[in-house]
């Protein structure tokens, strides 16, 4: 399709926020690199009509290394026509321009949006974008995406480019040193197949040793040519101490610096801002650790646990039990005479009394509170700093600090977090992170219910938290020991601390609640229908009887079997069932801790399992599921015994 705008650029430069501005949709915007890990598409209304706009994960250079970079590049290669809107951070142009030059080398029609002009100005940086546009031979527009500044002009230019009113005849050409140039020509002459990128661009990626591209070339070319290409790469790598890939980066960067000469003027080196000072407090372990504990206590325990899962859930549940369900029962009774069919809606496990109530009264307020709290963290830029603080801890789990981003994201929703494991470098790390998410990271709904159930007994909260954390650490440590592969390395760009914008927080919270709600409601209703039908045919009772011994072994009353049956559908559904069971007074503190621990460690929900299946494959997913059921039960068993020994 010709009328397509592909948004591309380094991580965390404002691609998604521009996408939102252009399309009126909402792609998640957060202040850390690696927010977007999937392609998102929408439509923008330009003067020439509706145009497709595509948002992509961040890409440092055309030489893609991590999985999310590959997602972006694959898309770029399948959609060679259309216009590329490269978004760049005005403060770091010399680091952004190499990508521009590579895109131009690949003959793309590029429009460059130099974003975050407000931050550049605050740092005393002044940019002459007209000269830049002239030197590159492409349109360059300055923007402040958060305020929508420069957007009209950007749309105007995109529209002109789409109509072919702006010519791309004389754009900047990349040049390399004679040795590198000779290598590139040697490779290009051996590339005979048809590729999605022009030969000079492709040979640069081949010479740099891009794995995915090399694999493509190996499949497409004859053995003889492939050997010749390999020989060129090997010889070139031997010539430079850091390899030829580094040499290429140096040469492209030098050209970027050349282009930027006289364009970036530092008017004044301003005094340090509050952001800088606060940033040091968060990265210094002496102050960072207390800050982390405060964030966890106030954000997670007080706000999500006590307020969301306590106050809000109680109020909504009262509303349901005293008003909505009786009203629903009356209504159903007048419409449907048969008691059997009535029970489908308002019976013990009915659609309204169970499915809708769990979704609306229990899950939704908790997910809402958590999203609100977590969005604040995301938008301030705290997560990368947390990654830095916890890198050493993550290393003992076979992960690097970067993994703290998917792991904490999992406290919101494990399904989204499993997708975000794409930001990890190696398959080994992605597997470990996926496993830990499935085993020991409770999602917000589950976490909220459990926190509120246990919160009358602070000791129980502490015990449950320690056991789950211990299992997480042990599992990670074991995996690190057992899995072949090298220990991970940690390097991460730390974005500046930013003041969260309320509008983004609210929209993000709302969109997550909506997403969650639409995902759980059909499942919850489906479970109600399933149980209703299962009861009718005696299947439900049979399943419960099957589960009862396992539940009894955990020291739990037989009624708790239902909770675990629910848990098979979704962990949070199980937790919600626990809420009901506890409200009926059937559980002692020991029971509560045992059940909460087992359910936390229990199977991931169906959606998470589906994502796991897609990202890690069937073998890994089934293996993970099997291990998890056994581990959850075994730990629950141990906790129960230990607690009874302690006389509880």
């Amino acid at each position, binding site marked *: 399709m010709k009328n397509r705008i592909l948004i591309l650029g380094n991580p965390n430069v404002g691609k998604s926020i521009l996408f939102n501005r252009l399309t009126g949709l909402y792609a998640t915007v957060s202040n850390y690199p690696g927010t977007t890990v999937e392609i998102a598409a929408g439509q923008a209304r330009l003067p020439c009509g509706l145009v497709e706009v595509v948002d992509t994960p961040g890409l440092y250079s055309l030489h893609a290394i991590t999985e999310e970079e590959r997602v972006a590049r694959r898309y770029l290669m399948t959609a060679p026509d259309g216009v590329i809107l490269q978004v760049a951070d005005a403060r770091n142009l010399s680091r952004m321009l190499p990508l521009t030059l590579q895109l131009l080398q690949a003959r793309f029609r590029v429009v460059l949006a130099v974003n975050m002009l407000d931050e550049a100005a605050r740092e005393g940086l002044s940019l002459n974008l007209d000269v830049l546009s002239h030197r590159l031979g492409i349109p360059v527009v300055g923007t402040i995406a958060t305020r929508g500044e420069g957007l009209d002009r950007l749309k105007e230019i995109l529209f002109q480019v789409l109509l072919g009113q702006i010519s791309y005849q004389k754009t900047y050409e990349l040049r390399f040193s004679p040795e590198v140039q000779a290598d590139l020509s040697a490779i290009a002459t051996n590339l005979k197949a048809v590729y999605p990128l022009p030969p000079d661009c492709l040979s640069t990626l081949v010479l740099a040793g891009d794995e995915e591209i090399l694999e493509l070339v190996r499949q497409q070319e004859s053995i003889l040519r492939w050997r010749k290409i390999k020989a060129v790469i090997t010889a070139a790598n031997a010539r430079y101490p850091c390899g030829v890939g*580094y040499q290429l*980066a140096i040469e492209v960067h030098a050209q970027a610096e050349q282009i930027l000469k006289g364009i970036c003027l530092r008017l004044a080196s301003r005094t340090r801002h509050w952001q800088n000072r606060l940033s040091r407090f968060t990265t210094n372990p002496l102050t960072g650790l207390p800050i982390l504990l405060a964030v966890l206590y106030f954000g997670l325990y007080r706000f999500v646990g006590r307020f969301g899962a306590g106050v809000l859930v109680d109020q909504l549940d009262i509303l349901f039990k005293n008003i909505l369900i009786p009203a629903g029962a009356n209504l159903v009774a007048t419409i449907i005479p048969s008691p059997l069919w009535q029970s489908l809606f308002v019976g013990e496990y009915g659609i309204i009394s169970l499915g809708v109530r769990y979704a609306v009264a229990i899950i939704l307020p908790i997910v809402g509170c958590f999203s609100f709290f977590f969005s604040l963290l995301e938008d301030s830029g705290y997560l990368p700093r947390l990654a830095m603080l916890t890198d050493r801890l993550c290393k003992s789990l076979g992960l690097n600090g970067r993994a703290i981003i998917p792991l904490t994201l999992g406290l919101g929703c494990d399904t989204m977090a499993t997708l975000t494991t794409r930001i990890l470098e190696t398959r080994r790390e992605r597997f470990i992170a996926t496993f830990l998410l499935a085993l020991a990271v409770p999602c917000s709904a589950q976490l909220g219910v459990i926190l509120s159930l246990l919160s009358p007994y602070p000791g129980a909260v502490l015990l449950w938290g320690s056991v789950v954390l211990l299992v997480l650490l042990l599992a990670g440590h074991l995996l690190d020991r057992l899995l072949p592969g090298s220990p991970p390395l*940690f390097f991460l760009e730390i974005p500046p601390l930013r003041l969260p914008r309320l509008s983004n927080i609210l929209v993000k919270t709302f969109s997550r609640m909506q997403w969650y709600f639409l995902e759980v409601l059909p499942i919850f209703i489906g479970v109600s229908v399933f149980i209703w039908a299962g009861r009718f045919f005696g299947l439900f009772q049979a399943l419960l009887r099957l589960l009862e011994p396992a539940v009894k072994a955990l020291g739990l009353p037989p009624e708790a079997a239902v909770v675990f049956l629910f848990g098979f559908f979704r962990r949070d559904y199980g937790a919600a069932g626990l809420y009901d069971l506890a409200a009926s007074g059937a559980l002692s503190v020991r029971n509560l801790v045992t059940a909460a621990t087992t359910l936390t460690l229990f199977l991931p929900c169906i959606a998470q399992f589906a994502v796991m299946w897609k990202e890690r494959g069937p073998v890994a997913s089934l293996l993970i599921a099997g291990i998890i059921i056994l581990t959850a039960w075994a730990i629950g068993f141990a906790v129960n015994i230990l607690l009874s020994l302690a006389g509880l």
Partner: protein
Amino acid sequence: MDQFPLTRLAPGTTARIAGIRSTNGTLINKLAALGVLPGLPLTLIQTYPAYLVQIGQTELALDRETARCIEVII
């Protein structure tokens, strides 16, 4: 005026990047993409629990193993 690993730089000082010493091609390419390129000034901000450096307007967090690969010159 010899080059030495970043880990031997004192926190708070600025040096120039001399190069990367590593056999891990992916790491070299990744660091290059993050702007660790010869000649650029680099300021070491802190070293524990991870290394934090500033190159231009970019702040980078690195573990010790990665920091050891980066050679600087004063």
